[in-house]
Each structure stands twice: as structure tokens, then as C-alpha cells.
């Protein structure tokens, strides 16, 4: 029993890192440029598909495929900012709300585009390391969990480094705290929103590949991932990177440790109820800094 618990804790922490990576871009986009990108999870699914087909059709490891996926997704993020986000900013009185509903439309369109092109079979990523498992002490961990956990940790480290130690990153944070003040002190707001959106979508791509090392997936799974993202974002505080990390670890542990005692179908329900609770108890300024 103790061993089982220990095992659940280790895999929960690894999964938590992946969840944090999945949520970090969403939280950042919401917090710093006020856009609620509902299509974030569906873009992650696209990343998962690209990784899956790179190994299946071209025998290129998904980790190698990231060399293409990351810049591609960065470009998608920048383009989103130039097109849809720009129109939202120009035309809407209520940016958060308009972005949410309109990008819900984009998410539905992309989900079904993927269902149409990639068909609706459930996909399982099969690489040597995903299928293997490792014994550390008395705990067995699958190779997929370890690789995806490390990948997530490195990516999160990069995002943290960027936000705290580079000029552009610092201006993203400045913009998040005080948009007008930041603009007054010479922060280039166009560049900030472009870089934020680019990095956010790039992390979604990496997270998608990481998640495909943990779970089977299909185009419709983005709804589940989206709920996880919302849960972590609201738990950690919108736009708060450290909060996202802590939130991700908490949710990863809850899912993994919960699975020891509770059937899997009920874990989803618990996530839903948790999110309802957070939303209802949340008051402005309570959780988000």
C-alpha cells in the first residue's frame, strides 16, 4: 500500500509538471494580454498529432520533431495575435469575453478539422522509451512519464528564465501588472502581445507532445485538457507562473493519488466539482495576484 502510494506520488509529480506546462501559456495570455484562448488545448492536441505522425509516418522521434513544432507553433501564436486577437482588440468593448466566445468557435472548428483529416481513432504514441519502464528504488515509472516530465521541466525553466531575466520577458510581466504604466515607460506593447502569444502557443505544442507520452488521445480530448487548464489557472491565479507550477503539481498529485482509491471515471467528476467550487468561491483579487 505504501509502495503504491509512493508510486502514485512520483508519477503525480511528473504528470503535474506536464499539466503546468500545458497551462502556463494559457494563464500568461489571459493575465498579460487579457485574451482567454479557449483554443489553447486544441492546439496542444495538434502538437500531439504532429508528434504522433512524425514517428509513425517518417520514423522521426517526437522529441526531434519538436525542432519543427516549436518554431511552427510560435509562428501560429504570432499569427493568432496579428489576426484574431487584433480584431478582438479593435472591435470589442469586452476583450476577455469576446475572446472567449470567438475562440470557442475556433476550437470547435480546429477540433473537427482534425477529426476530418486525422479521423477519430484513438491514438497511442509508441516509441521505445514510452513503452519501456524504469525501476527507481521500489517505484516503477514508465519511460514516457520520465521523458515528458523532464521535457516539461526544461520548458517551464525556459519560460521562467525568459520572463524574469530577459528584457522582453520583463516587459511582458510589467505589461501584466500595469499595462498603461508599462506603455508609458517605453514598453513596446505590440511586441509584448506578439511574443506572449507566440510563446504561449509554443508551450501548448510541447505540452501536447508531452501529454501524448502519458495518455492515448484523439481530437475530442481537448475538452478534458481545457478543464484541467482552467482548474490550474484559476487555482494558481491568472497570469501567475509560480502559481501555475504549484497548481499543476497539486492537480497532478490529486489525479494520480486519487486513482489509487477512486475509479477513473469518478476522478473526472472530482475535477469538475473542484473547478465549480473554485469558481463559486473565487472573489475578485482573492486568488489572482
Amino acid at each position, binding site marked *: 500500500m505504501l509502495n503504491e502510494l509512493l508510486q502514485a506520488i512520483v508519477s503525480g509529480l511528473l504528470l503535474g509538471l506536464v499539466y503546468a506546462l500545458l497551462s502556463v501559456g494559457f494563464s500568461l495570455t489571459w493575465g498579460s494580454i487579457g485574451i*482567454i484562448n479557449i483554443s489553447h488545448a486544441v492546439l496542444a492536441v495538434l502538437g500531439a498529432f504532429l508528434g504522433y505522425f512524425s514517428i509513425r509516418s517518417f520514423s522521426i522521434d517526437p522529441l526531434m520533431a519538436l525542432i519543427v513544432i516549436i518554431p511552427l507553433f510560435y509562428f501560429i501564436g504570432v499569427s493568432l495575435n496579428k489576426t*484574431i486577437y487584433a*480584431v*478582438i482588440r479593435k*472591435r*470589442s468593448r*469586452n476583450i*476577455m*469575453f*469576446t475572446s*472567449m*466566445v*470567438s*475562440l*470557442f*468557435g*475556433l*476550437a*470547435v*472548428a*480546429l*477540433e*473537427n*478539422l482534425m*477529426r*476530418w483529416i486525422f479521423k477519430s481513432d484513438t491514438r497511442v504514441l509508441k516509441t521505445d522509451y514510452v513503452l519501456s519502464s524504469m525501476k527507481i528504488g521500489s517505484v516503477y515509472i514508465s519511460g514516457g512519464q520520465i521523458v515528458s516530465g523532464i521535457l516539461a521541466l526544461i520548458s517551464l525553466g525556459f519560460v521562467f528564465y525568459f520572463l524574469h531575466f530577459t528584457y522582453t520577458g520583463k516587459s511582458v510581466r510589467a505589461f501584466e501588472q500595469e499595462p498603461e504604466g508599462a506603455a508609458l515607460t517605453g514598453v513596446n506593447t505590440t511586441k509584448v502581445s506578439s511574443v506572449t502569444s507566440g510563446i504561449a502557443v509554443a508551450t501548448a505544442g510541447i505540452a501536447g507532445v508531452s501529454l501524448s507520452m502519458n495518455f492515448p488521445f484523439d481530437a475530442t480530448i481537448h*475538452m478534458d485538457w481545457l*478543464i484541467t487548464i*482552467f482548474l490550474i489557472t484559476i487555482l494558481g491565479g491568472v497570469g501567475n507562473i509560480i502559481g501555475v507550477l504549484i497548481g499543476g503539481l497539486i492537480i497532478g498529485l490529486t489525479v494520480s493519488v486519487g486513482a489509487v482509491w477512486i475509479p477513473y*471515471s*469518478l476522478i*473526472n*467528476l472530482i475535477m*469538475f*466539482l473542484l*473547478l*465549480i467550487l473554485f*469558481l*463559486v468561491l*473565487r472573489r475578485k483579487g482573492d486568488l489572482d495576484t
Partner: protein
Amino acid sequence: MNLLKKNGFLFVILAIVLLLILIPFIGLKTHIILFLFILMMNSSLAIGWNILGGYAGYVSFGHVAFVGLGGYFTAVLLVEFGWSPIYTTVLAGVVAALFALIIGYPSLRIRGPYFSVLTLVIALAVSAIVLNFPKIDASSGIFVTPPGDSIHSSSIILFEMMGISLLITIIVAQLIEKSKFGLGLFAIREDEEVASTQGVNTTKVKLAAFVISGGLGGLIGGIFSWYQGVLYVDAIFSVKLSVMIVLMAILGGTNSWVGALIGATIVTVIDRVLTLYIDSSVSQIIFGVLLLVVILYLPGGISGWFKDRFKSAT
């Protein structure tokens, strides 16, 4: 414009009543009757959703919570006790309205995107609860005995029930639009703080709209599950349906039930044609893009666009 609207109301009501009387006699093909059934269902759902989502601007992405609750309520009563949904669907409406009353008070304090997310998750949670509910064994599907002896007679019974529900929905929406209560809802959409200082009891008004909207959803769900034959959780608690309801109302224009009716008609026809001739995912792609474009470029919907045209012409 006002006169036109009033006549429009009478015209639509008369048309539906006429159709209800004639359908059993004019010998339409079954699949056409069932298409009209879906058309009327989508219209009532969009008009019912619009009472809170459109008039008051509280956009719910979880309207199917009520539809699903109502659907399972009538289905379980039919299977367990043999009670016909003709009667129990009214109770299904009451049950859904009660559910709206319970969740409404804490939910409606939350605004904007948070409310939308909350309703989305509530629908997912309700569907997960139904799926895991002991005894009803929802995961393997519930076999619902059809209403009539033949497919054709079943379709006529379903059509009549849905037609009456649509009539009720339109009349309720029209009464609300013309009342002080409706004015309060519109005021909340424009500015909730101002509405509150102008003497609108915002909490009460919002809650009432939510209860009416949810109740209508339950009523329609009670009929929808009878139509399904075998009831699955994914079919009635579908996020796709929730999104379609929002799209129908916003596409047509959320200021009145006329907009929701127009939007529902367009969406249902497109959905049917594309699903039939290409693929259901293609119609979903188009709906997604439509929602995106309409929100950004046509926030008043089709009826709003016509109204603007009409105004600028005179």
C-alpha cells in the same frame, strides 16, 4: 418596426398551430416530419437559452445540463414505471427549473467569462453524475420504448409535443420581452451596476430568467430523450449541442426570440445538408468559423444587421 414585430408574433404562432393541426393529415414523409421536429427543438432551445444568455447577457455554455436532466428524468420514469413522457415531460421541466433555482443563486453572482466556464463545467459535472449514478446504468444506454406503433405515428406524436413546447417557449419569450421583467434583463445586459441603482432587483431578475430558461430546457429535453430511442449520456449532454445553441442565438441576434428562431433555422438546415452530403465534422468546422466571424463582425446577429439597414434607409 414595432408593428411588424407584433404581426410577426401572431404570424409565427398561427403558422405553428396550423402545422400542428395539419401534420397528421397531409401525409408528409417520416424523415421530413423528424427534420421539422429537430428544427422546432433547436428553435425552442435557442429561444429558451436566449432568455438569460441573450436578454441578460449571461452566456451559458452548459444549457444541455437542463436538457439532459429533463431527458433522463422522463426516460427513467418511462422505463421504471411506464409513465408516458407526454405527461412526465412537464415534470421534467419543473425538475430542471428547480435545479436552475439551486445552482442559480451561487452561479449568477459570477459574471462574464467566469460564468460561461462555470456553466460549461456544471453541464460536464451533471453528465458525469448521471453516468456514474447507481441503478440507472447510463453507460450502456437506456432503451426508451417509442411513443407510437410505427415509426410514422411516433414521429407525429413527437412532432405535436415539440410543436406545443415551441409555442409555449415563444409565448413566454414574447411576454418577457414586452414586460418590465424583460426590461430589467436588458438593463442588466447593458450595465448591471446601473440597473441595480435604478431599482432593478438584479439577483431576483437574473434568477427568474435562469429558472425559466432552464425549465424550458428540461421540458424540451424530456421530449428529446423519447426521440432518441436509446439514450446515451454523450448524445444528450453534448458540448456540441451547447455550442450550437449559443451559435444559433448569436447568429440570429439575441435581442428577441425572432433572432433565435432565424438563427436556429439557418443552423439546422446547414447542419442537415452538410451532414447528409459531406460529413458531420465539416458542418462543425463551418459552425465554429461562423461563431468566430459573427462574434467579431456581427455582434447584433442577422436580425441586428437587418435592423441597422432598415434604420439607415429611413
